[in-house]
């Protein structure tokens, strides 16, 4: 999936290009850049995790993610904001989600960055399947071991 600088949020099937994303946030008015990276960790609730698979419902995920970034502009005094979420198989240490916000001052940048990641986690139709060392898999939050 090609990245488009005009989209404030996108689902991406390709590795995230962090430097390129940061370029979208440059603004002479900004004195602060807050970023958040979500990484794939090797454990969850006591089980050893080997890899993660993210899937999404892109038609709605992109709309909802873009709504969240718009809300951040309404709530906080920020200059620019962009977020991306990966889908596909990710290895341990892989970057699953990236949020960057630039603002005149650090308070608004931190607050908006946190708002965006929390809302993404709570609202955007993205699902995570964990692959355990035991060979089992689980869709997180679906409360069912397979």
């Amino acid at each position: 999936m090609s990245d488009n600088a005009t989209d404030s949020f996108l689902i991406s099937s390709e590795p995230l290009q962090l430097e390129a994303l940061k370029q979208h946030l440059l603004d002479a008015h900004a004195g602060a850049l807050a970023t958040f990276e979500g990484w794939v960790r090797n454990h969850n609730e006591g089980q050893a995790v080997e890899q993660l698979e993210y899937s999404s419902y892109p038609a709605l995920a992109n709309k909802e993610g873009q709504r969240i970034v718009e809300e951040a502009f309404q709530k906080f005094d920020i200059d620019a904001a962009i977020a991306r979420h990966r889908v596909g198989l990710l290895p341990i240490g892989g970057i699953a989600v990236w949020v960057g916000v630039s603002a005149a001052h650090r308070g608004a940048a931190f607050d908006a960055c946190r708002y965006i990641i929390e809302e993404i986690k709570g609202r955007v139709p993205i699902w995570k399947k964990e692959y355990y060392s035991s060979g089992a898999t689980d869709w997180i939050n679906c409360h069912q071991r397979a």
Partner: protein
Amino acid sequence: MKLKIQYFALLKDQRGLDKETVDSEANTPESLYAELVAMHGFTLPQSALKVAVNDDFSSWGQALKEGDNVVFIPPVAGG
């Protein structure tokens, strides 16, 4: 009427398909999901799901019409 359904995550695994067209008597997402649970044994209760019609969040009681694209959204887990 004919309805298009897309499945994601656990629902996709349990159905063994990522989409299908069904001929249904259901006139709301709520009754459609109840039909599908009876047919396919989905384990997620309706209360755990959200629903989208034609790529926007919808209510469970919205009237469905011929050709609508319905997606039942399992608990999300991004990040």
